[in-house]
């Protein structure tokens, strides 16, 4: 767990959150907390309960059981106060097409109780944040998909909420708009201290701006980690995955698997994506000695006279972590707020 997230006070604390739909449990005793100033990726298969969780955090739907605290406020007891501290952009969001960007922002600010004297400044800030300042007089109905998404985000943050919930915000955006979105979300966290929970199926992009990951499956929380801990082996983690290295050769190496497997520190070898590549899984190294282990392996490869032209540690990314959890049997996984959890 990174020191920064451990030191920060949790903005959101969820305890045994359970939410039922008729005949179906959408969330089953979910517990976690989100530190202030973090961006958490909320991932899981369709129907895992992501949207339901967001709606409960936004105090739109009451939980059947359990407790949600946002900024110290119980979402069941004081939902209106939670609304004021929250911005929520749903997957299926709507805009008033006949209103201009300025009118839409004015309405969002005024309806969220921004003082009248500050509305103009907030509108300008929100429009600048999403790069819509030059389109204030354009009608929402005439904006492209990406620009509509930006306007919706601007309306969501115009009252400067402490917590922002974004359900599939990158859905339907072109690559440039996605890059812009990533920059914006990073900026909301770093420059404005907002705490964000972002659900998306595009895991590679989440990795660009998220600090933590929260994986839901069948309504249960199966993992909640700082992203660095989840993607690589954190030194303090006893159950961290072993290191892996991919090696490329300039020529095909006969009997490569046997020769590589005999090298010191190599636990197993598997074929790479091409005949001149192989992936080696290393034996567990002493904490903090992973780099030394790799250097020794590279030396051994060259000493063996193998035509090495590429050598790189394989980083486990968010997609790998997510896939690992999907492969596990139902209900398996690291308990919420486990060793790598964000307490």
């Amino acid at each position: 767990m990174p020191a920064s997230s451990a030191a920060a006070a949790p903005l959101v604390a969820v305890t045994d959150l359970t939410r039922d739909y008729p005949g179906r449990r959408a969330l089953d005793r979910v517990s976690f907390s989100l530190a202030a100033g973090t961006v958490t990726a909320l991932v899981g298969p369709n129907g895992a309960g992501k949207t339901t969780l967001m709606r409960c955090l936004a105090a739109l739907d009451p939980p059947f059981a359990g407790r949600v605290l946002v900024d110290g406020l119980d979402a069941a007891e004081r939902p209106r106060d939670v609304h004021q501290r929250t911005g929520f952009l749903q997957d299926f969001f709507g805009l008033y097409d006949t209103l201009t960007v300025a009118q839409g922002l004015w309405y969002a600010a005024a309806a969220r109780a921004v003082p009248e004297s500050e509305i103009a400044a907030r509108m300008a800030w929100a429009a600048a944040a999403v790069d819509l300042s030059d389109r204030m007089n354009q009608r929402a109905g005439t904006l492209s998909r990406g620009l509509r998404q930006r306007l919706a985000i601007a309306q969501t943050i115009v009252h400067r909420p402490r917590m922002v919930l974004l359900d599939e915000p990158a859905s339907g955006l072109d690559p440039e708009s996605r890059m812009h979105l990533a920059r914006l979300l990073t900026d909301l966290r770093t420059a404005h201290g907002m705490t964000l929970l972002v659900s998306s199926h595009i895991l590679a992009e989440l990795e660009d701006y998220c600090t933590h990951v929260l994986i839901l499956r069948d309504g249960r929380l199966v993992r909640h980690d700082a992203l660095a801990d989840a993607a690589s082996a954190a030194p303090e983690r006893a159950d961290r995955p072993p290191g892996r290295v991919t090696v490329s050769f300039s020529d095909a190496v006969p009997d490569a698997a046997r020769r590589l497997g005999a090298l010191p520190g190599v636990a197993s070898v598997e074929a790479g994506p091409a005949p001149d590549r192989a992936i080696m899984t290393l034996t567990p190294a002493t904490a903090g000695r992973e780099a030394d282990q790799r250097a020794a392996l590279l030396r051994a490869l060259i000493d063996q006279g193998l035509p090495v032209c590429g050598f790189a540690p394989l980083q486990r990314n968010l997609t790998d972590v997510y896939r690992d959890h999907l492969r596990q049997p139902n209900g398996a996984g690291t308990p919420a707020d486990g060793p790598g959890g964000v307490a």
Partner: protein
Amino acid sequence: MMLPFPLANPEFRRNLWVEFSAQRLATMPALLGLLLLGGHAAMGVEGVAGLATTALFVLLVLWGTRMAAGAIGDEIQAGTWDAQRMSALRPWTMTWGKLLGATAYSWYGAAFCVVALLATGRTGAAEILNMLLTGLTAQGAAFFAGLLLVRGAPRGTVRTNIALAQAVAIVLAIWLATRDWYWSSQTVRWWGLDLDGRAFMLSTQVLALAWVLAGVHAVMREELRYPSQPWTWLAFLAFAAAYTAGFSDALSVALWFEAMVAVPVVPLVVAFATAATLTLVAALAGPQSSVALRRWLAAPTRARGRPVALLLEAPAWSLGLAVTVALSVALTAVWLRVPSPDWLPVLVWSAVLFLIRDLGIVLALTLDGDMRRGPAGALIVLLTLYLLVPIALADVLPGIGAAVRPTWGATVSGTLVPALGQALVAWAVVGWRWRSVHAGAARTTPG
């Protein structure tokens, strides 16, 4: 700079932005002007007055109710309602901002019609005020019914529910118009008082509008996640029971019952019937979620520890049932002083059991079910029990009418016992539905 009062309401202002454009501002007076000029050319001043009155009805009642009924449903379909629910707008601000904002264009047109009516001098100010009040009340009723029917309903049913809400509002407008026509030319006897018909009608209009707005406010509170409270519904039940009981006439009831009825009991009979009817309507109108019911029933448990929620979060039908039972007790107590007719308590308590049966039927067919087909199916079953069965089987089973619906001359074996049996069967079906909808969810105590 401070905004003037109505425009300070963001919801009202947003609606004005949506509803008005330069083109629409010009179109309405142009069309109405041409219409009224045509009327003048054809029938002179009388034609103008007639057409202005018709246009006023069309704008406020036919068109205005559509806009009011869709004030929430359209937001749900557009995906903007949840954002509004999370706004800082208070229930009353949201209520009048939407009601007057969504219908603003119809009122814009109505203003031209009123000017034309005043200019013709054929329609008095009181009559115009009455028309405007009817229009506003109908729009309020459409807004209320629309809000009630679309919340929690699947998106696919929104259009149907908006149409239904508009139909309810138009029926109310027609009822108010016929009452006005009937009462304004005579005195009205209410709770033994002879009242001026026109003044009574105006009071009725104002009260109807006030209750419609109170209803919208109460439902809006729930939508905006303010704590639940049953007081508006309970107050309305008391008002409706007292209002209708004021018209009770011992002679009419005696003729209807074909028996002498103790005079003090008569208002209670009417109040009882009103409360029971409203209870059934409430059950048919509201979404019946087993999850919400479980959470409500768990209120007094140790896990939830909020016994007061048993009252505060009670479904409207359960409170209505409690009021109906309380009225039955009062009615029985009053009847004991002058026990005539002797079968009256059997009728009243069998009616309570039939109401319990009917609530069971509604719950069994609507619990977590299709918001459109469930209530419609329940309504068909109820109509079958109350109308079709007694008529169709009267020749074969002469006592069938008394066994399936409250009937004067009720007997313990012919009415009360069958009513009890049907109530038990209906609630056994509810129990079976209850178990089946929760088969997929694990047991967790609500908190």
